[in-house]
């Protein structure tokens, strides 16, 4: 093993940090039980409509997912591509370390 052993305090910090991210993402769901957590670009559209009611978008997307299901598929695909590469990277590094570089 060439890597320095990870100290227990560092591991504790990692667990704490992950926990904070989870709490930040999950707590809102319980704070606002009546919300749908709409993300989306719809509302900025609303704000523009208020300030400039006559504005007509002059260009529409070349292609738009037919619905929410396909859109979530594509978002999942995007995340999977990224996460897949990150997993590959760290797996490769770990393998290289274990075989003594």
């Amino acid at each position, binding site marked *: 093993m060439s890597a320095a052993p990870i100290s227990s305090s560092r591991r504790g910090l990692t667990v704490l940090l992950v926990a904070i991210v989870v709490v930040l993402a*999950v707590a809102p769901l319980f704070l606002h039980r009546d919300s749908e957590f709409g993300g989306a670009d719809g509302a900025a559209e609303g704000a523009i409509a208020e300030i400039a009611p006559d504005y007509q978008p002059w260009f529409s997307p070349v292609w738009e997912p037919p619905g929410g299901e396909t859109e979530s598929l594509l978002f999942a695909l995007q995340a999977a591509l990224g996460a897949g590469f990150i997993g590959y990277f760290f797996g490769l590094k770990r393998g290289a370390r274990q075989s003594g570089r």
Partner: protein
Amino acid sequence: MSRKVIGSRVILCLAALLLAGGRVAWAAGSAAPQAMHIMEGFLPPAWAAFWFAVALPFWVLGFRRIRRLVAEKPETRLLLGLAGAFTFVLSALKLPSVTGSSSHPTGTGLGAILFGPLEMSILGTIALIFQALLIAHGGLTTLGANATSMAIVGPLVAFGVWRGLRDRLPQGWAVFLAAALADLITYVVTSAQLALAYPDPTGGFVAAFAKFGAIFAVTQVPLAISEGILTVLIFNALRSSAPAELQALGLKGA
């Protein structure tokens, strides 16, 4: 008490404050969902062109820097992919926020710290093109504007904060602040871009900026904290897993 322990306590207090603040904001009825990117066709042609003109030099220089980097230090290629992958993952995660709406982080802090803002302008723009073409999120006409906020100004801020703080704070804190502030500034720039294109009929730019800014201000703060933490986690993992690559980039390994 060690610095680390104090640091964790500060984070916990911040989180508690935010949760409380989110509740208040919600009660005051200021909750509205918001956009991360400016939608297709939603900037008048002149502004769309203006932001392309702003982004173009960064793209040209960024492209050159990446080409040189890959030629001179081929061992950093994988790491370049990793920074791009991190942006891909983070900008696909629409996280619920304390205001009752969702938004997503940007993931641009990591690449800006590892490589620099010019290199990150290319990586961030690739993620934006993917979203504009496949998911109709953001757009091609607004690509210049969205790249300016997310792939250029965000990374510039991350890089500046990182360079300014890395010798003064523990490394983790410098990484955290760089990534979190890059996330926040991205939204500030987006509101400014919208306000420039759509000034309020009576209050002008300032009133419109306040309006667009208010839409996401509270929503984005917890997401910026999450983004900062996630960036610290992956940076720590890199320090122990890829010290040689970090060294090649002039960063200290574990």
